[in-house]
């Protein structure tokens, strides 16, 4: 293995991000341009994928390449019956999208468009029905706002300079998965 093509400053940041359980998305939000731009960390991983796969394999991890995003799996935990991260992510995204499209009656587009996004102050104003609160409680999210912040911390949501959150590449991929799962189930 040679690391001559690896950008060491980026690889250190990649390491920090991945080992903190964060996702590296294809796009990041640019506050200067107020738009989504290519993520240099993602490009670095994509261009030297084999090297990075080996790097994390050697430390007992697996670098998961999902096309539009990367994340790290800790191999030691494989076949673990407990899935805290997974259940927290999926439950938060289901509750958030349902809340925006149903309780707020907004179009799904508002979650994707950098000019719209989810506003924390508006979420604070919503009196959540009991079933929402029960799901959040069982998923160990103290509140809907905390769930949004959790998704943002994991990079499934991106914070814009309007202090709102929009879906990242990984967030959109998850929406697609849920959509596919439940539109197939109905047919």
């Amino acid at each position, binding site marked *: 293995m040679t690391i001559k093509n690896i950008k060491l400053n980026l690889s250190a940041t990649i390491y920090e991000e991945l080992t903190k359980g964060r996702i590296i998305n294809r796009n990041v939000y640019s506050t200067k341009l107020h738009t989504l731009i290519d993520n240099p960390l993602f490009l670095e991983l994509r261009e030297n994928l084999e090297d990075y796969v080996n790097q994390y394999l050697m430390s007992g991890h697996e670098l998961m390449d999902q096309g539009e995003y990367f994340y790290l799996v800790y191999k030691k935990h494989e076949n673990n019956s407990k899935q805290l*991260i997974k259940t927290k992510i999926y439950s938060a995204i289901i509750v958030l999208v349902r809340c925006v499209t149903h309780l707020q009656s907004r179009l*799904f587009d508002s979650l994707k468009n950098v000019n719209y996004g989810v506003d924390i102050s508006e979420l604070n104003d919503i009196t959540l029905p009991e079933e929402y609160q029960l*799901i959040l409680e069982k998923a*160990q999210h103290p509140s809907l706002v905390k769930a949004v912040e959790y998704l943002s911390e994991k990079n499934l949501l991106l914070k814009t300079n309007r202090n709102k959150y929009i879906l990242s590449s990984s967030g959109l991929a998850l929406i697609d998965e849920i959509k596919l799962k439940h539109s197939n189930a109905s047919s």
Partner: protein
Amino acid sequence: MRLDSTLINYKTTIKYIVDYDEPFVSIIEYMDKHSVNRVPVVHFERTVKQLTDKIKVIKDRQSVDAISKAYSIRNLKQHNFAIHDESNETITLTKFIEMFVRNMSEKMRVKPITDKRFKAHVSTLRQIIEESDDYLSKSTHEKVVFREFLQEFLSEVKQDFETNKRAISQHTDNLSKLLKASSEQQGTQRLIYTKIVELCERYVEPFFQFISQTEDKDGFIPTMVLLREFFAKQNMIDEEAEIGKFILNFASYTKDIHHVYNRINDYRRKGQQDLLVFNSFEKAFNQLSDIVMDMQDGLLVRNNLDNNPDFIAIYSQFDDAKIDNDKYGHVSFRYSELTEHFVNIEKDLLFFSKSKSKDDHSSLEIDLERLALDKEAAQELLSRNKNSKKLILAISKLIREHFSTFNCLNEPIDIIGKIHTVLAEHIKKYRPFFTLYAYTNIRKKLLVLEKEGKLMVRVGYDHRRSFEHDGIKYSYRPIFIQESK
């Protein structure tokens, strides 16, 4: 023929329907709302009553009677405007009056026609073509009937195509205007998108598919060409020309529909995407809610979603996803340091523990060793303390004996030098710092006596005296005391 007194003539009925169309508008609204063709007579008569009650206030009795007669079921049946089904007391408008009222009313423009009707036209056209092969063998009467049927068919087809084009264009315009005017926050856009998707999937898309296929070899237009050829053979010039015009118009017609289709399809795509997410997440949420409700039985030891195999199994991503290092530190933590740290804690615990483990020999040895060391140190300290105590007592005794009173001190004496002389004489293992210790002990007493005026104490700042002990010369600043006079 003289009309019944409860009936009025055709023209007058039409006039009243045009001027006061509320009962029929209400019927059509009911039909659209419930997706039915038949409307209960009670509903119809109630709307007529509401109309006459309203008219009574502003018009004379004659007008009210005329309206009542125009809308009497008998009159409507007489002029073929409605069909009354006595078996279930319902009323159905004939196609003519329904279209007539719909066209009059801006808000209920003609509904688009389903593609099934056009497919039926294609089927009928094929039958006509098949039948036309036997045309020459038909009797004169049969030929007249066949030609009449052909003319009616052609007229109906043209009317249906025209109506559909207008209806679809009108609906698309209305929905796109509504969409632009609607507010995103109020959720009205989703309702309009729902209508657009419905319009598109129910009418526009199938109809567009239908007209796209009309150019195929067995499609509607090539079959129409066959019909035109038939008319040409029969020297039916008007009919031949009519079909010719229809085929020519069809090209522009296809273009118009294509334009409408493209316009509405953009909205449809956006709306469909939104509805797809909306519906999918409704199902996903309900499923998750059901799972959570099932967890409320209190049987699970740790009743959280991360333990729930049903929910974990539904989705594919993030199994065993990396947890934040700050919490678990798999990579950066040194386990050797951790174990060493715990060994030390264990030793300390054993050292202070009163109960000794009989099974663990190594810990027993450590314990005894530590205890033994400690005992020796404690013994040494204890004996040192004993000696110190003896020494202190001896010094105190000497000071009491020699310096309890300071009488008959006519001349100033050097108290430091005096203490040194006394202690060095009486203490076996004298060391110079004993003198310093003894002086600090009596200093307070000297200060009290000075305050009482019994003694004079003077510090010899500019003097230096010395004494010798074990060959070493110790220099000091003398303190002179003298009895006050």
